[in-house]
């Protein structure tokens, strides 16, 4: 099957029911997408399909019907997305393992809601688990990114 990932087209030979997560990680070597729980409880595997955040551990490869963006396609160390820049500015990460998913969740959310309230941020980000407890900085970074994106 054909998958469009981060602007590149890939031909992959996998079972229809292989979760997109494992196609990305083990077939295409895109390891910024993380395995955390495998049951949509932690959000570490979050990617965008046509700009919308989805849990790639729950999306079968055969059901992908749009362009996939991973953390690697969102921005790079040399060209940060506004959300990534906010994550750097607030020094959010501790272990960092959940942060790809947090950033992808935030980027999709802010794309749909440019002026979120505190409650809306809390609601949007509560499906993403952070075991280190970086939540206060995630909140702050989402607000900074929202302000930056609004000004853009």
């Amino acid at each position, binding site marked *: 099957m054909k998958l469009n990932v981060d602007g590149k087209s890939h031909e992959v030979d*996998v*079972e229809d029911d*292989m*979760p997109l*997560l*494992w196609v990305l*990680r*083990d*077939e295409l*070597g895109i*390891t*910024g*997408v*993380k*395995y*955390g*729980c*495998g*049951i949509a*409880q*932690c959000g*570490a595997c979050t990617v965008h399909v046509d700009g919308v955040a989805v849990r790639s551990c729950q999306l079968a490869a055969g059901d992908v019907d749009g362009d996939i963006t*991973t*953390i*690697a396609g969102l*921005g*790079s*160390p040399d060209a*940060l997305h506004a959300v*990534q820049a906010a*994550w*750097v500015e607030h*020094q*959010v*990460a*501790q*272990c*960092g*393992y*959940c*942060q*790809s998913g947090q*950033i992808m969740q935030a980027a999709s959310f802010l794309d749909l809601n440019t002026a979120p309230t505190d409650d809306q941020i*809390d*609601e949007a*980000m*509560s*499906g*993403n*688990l*952070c*075991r*280190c*407890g*970086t*939540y*206060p*900085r*995630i*909140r702050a970074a989402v607000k900074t990114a929202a302000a930056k994106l609004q000004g853009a």
Partner: protein
Amino acid sequence: MGRLKTIARRSFLIGSAAIVGGVAFGAYLVKRDPENPLSLDAAAGDAVFNPWVKINADGITLIAPHADLGQGAASMQAMLIAEELDVELDQIITSYGRPAATYYNTALAAEAVPFRSNDEGFAAETMRSTMGAVMKVLGAQVTGGSTSVPDSFDKLREAGAVARETLKAAAAAETGLDVSQLKTERAAVVLPDGTRMNYTELAARAAQMDPVTEVNLRDPAQWRLIGKPLQRIDILAKSTGTQTYSIDLKVEGMVHASVRMNPRKGAPMLGFDASAAEGMRGVSQIIGLPYGVAVVADNTWRAFRALEEIEIDWDVAPYPAEQDQHWAEVAASFVPERLDKEWRNDGDVDAALDGAEVFEAEYRAPYVAHQPLEPLSAIVKVSDGRVDIWASHQLPRFVQQRVAAKLDMETDQIHLHNQHAGGSFGHRLEFDNIDVTVDVARELPDTPVKLTFRREEDFAQDYNRQIGMARGRGTHANGQVTTLDLDIATVSASRSQSGRLGAPVPGPDTQIAAGAWNMRYAVPNLRVRAYAVPELAPTSSWRSVGASTAGFFAESFLDELIHAAGADPMSERLRLVNDPDARAVLEAVAEMSNWGSPLGPRKGRGVALVTSFGVPVAEVVEVTDTDDGIKIDRVWLAAEVGRVVDPVNFENVVAGGVIWGLGHAMNSEITYSDGRAEQDNYHLAEGMRLHQCPVIEVRALENNPNIRGIGEPPVPPAAPALANAIFAATGIRLREMPFFKTVSFV
């Protein structure tokens, strides 16, 4: 080649022969410095000034031997070396180097001795020195016990200073100038005329010289980096998905694998039927192991899926199968023959309780899993005469020794390539991922095997926090707490863990009553006794170890006694507190939280003070009893740490410790049924989520001359402060974690 025999003299000086557990180590062995591991790999032109600094024409490498588990250890260690070396953090790379005895932990001994951390008496200091000598002889390179900062603070600055002065000597030799005319900045020696000689250019010359070892450390007033808000060296990678963890690594020719081990932990497998998995796409091998079955495949998910198709017959658990049996064993342990140690006995508790109106209460703390977000994994390649291991571990030398013993090889044939971890919280002190991956890889010689645990397997195989109970008896008179008698019974996580390490710790378990017996209060009659419950399900160190349970027991019971006495929880603690550092942190949170100011309806504040790892931490929690459940509004925390090295990361890790303590107290436990852990993924052991997170305000106090680590100490006061706040708001006293058994949370 530069080679240094006497590095960091102050940290290594140990006066006399060490005698512990009947073993006598000669003073010679104790004083001999371990070899510099960097010299083993050094090429011509590499200046390896000491075990922490390597400079050659290509660049500057700082060795940061403490594992970065998310706590920012790599940045902290780099900062300490860079401060004295006069390099900026964007001019260096860090490396774990190879595991080595040189990197033995000089600070670990402080918490391993049965003395209060503020006890500087002769007996306490002698024992610390003795234990320190043991750590050195063992070459105990350990990340744990909140010791990375205290272990590193002096010796890494000295390592930087030695390298700097040697580079200056090289420049002096090159130019004929006197060293006193030379300055250093941004990785260069600067001559009086402004000419810059880069360290990388001086390296070849410096490599020919004996390092300058007589160095002075700078006055704190001159520091450019320490204590300043800097950018973590890994922050860009961790904000762009480019940080590589061991689960992400790819080694040429690698295959994927996964495993199912007996969920009745520690018991063998009796047999299996893999016929349904054979021939599944991508599956190359199905390997029966004494304790389970592994599948080797060309993709992790294919290995996971094949494992699900295998029918396995498991032996029974080596511990009671049902949770109520575990509790019954704990409850039966408050007996003289299981007394591990009476840690404290001030006044006359028995006389005070005799005939008095005694207030009694009983508390429970469950097993809890570690479950960092990066699941356990390892890559292992077994070749002829050499084994390579890629994994994150807190005990790298133990990994080498364990694998060498398993494969009947020499330790130096085992090459561990340590990695940054996606969290640990104590999980990466254990060896299951290493053991299993070695067992699979030895079946596939010369092939690197990456073995990944499913999250469900990770939960099933976790070594949880100790289960425990406490029984308190106390009295009060005239509005004051007069007697506090606390008996604590838990399984010994330290013995469980050290037994698996093959290095059982002699004497009483210092952790069973840690955070309780050392309470910095002068209650007239105060007794704390620790009882050791015989091993049940295996347990291990969980962020803050004993204090995570004993601190909850002690500060909950004290709070109950204060309420029974009709006193204010803050005022009575301030009246009882008997140590200036503890008083200062209590006063700080009282001021920060505006303690005593009126609260709205259905709101309450709770306070707790627990000292662990030498750090007194006070926390105030404020909650609202809403129609949707308890909402944790705010937390204020003050901690006495001696000195903050990295303020940005300090605040993050401390807040994270509060969230860890609160979240697990709210909703996390492991219970056993049919010998298996009943919780197998995060939906059943959730921890805190973002919408539940309070506003957290952190204050560091720097009054004490001893520098301390902060990874664990914020955890223990969180649970009792929350329970005490919920009592204040609702009148409901929570005596058992997790609290969601009794109250609901928003």
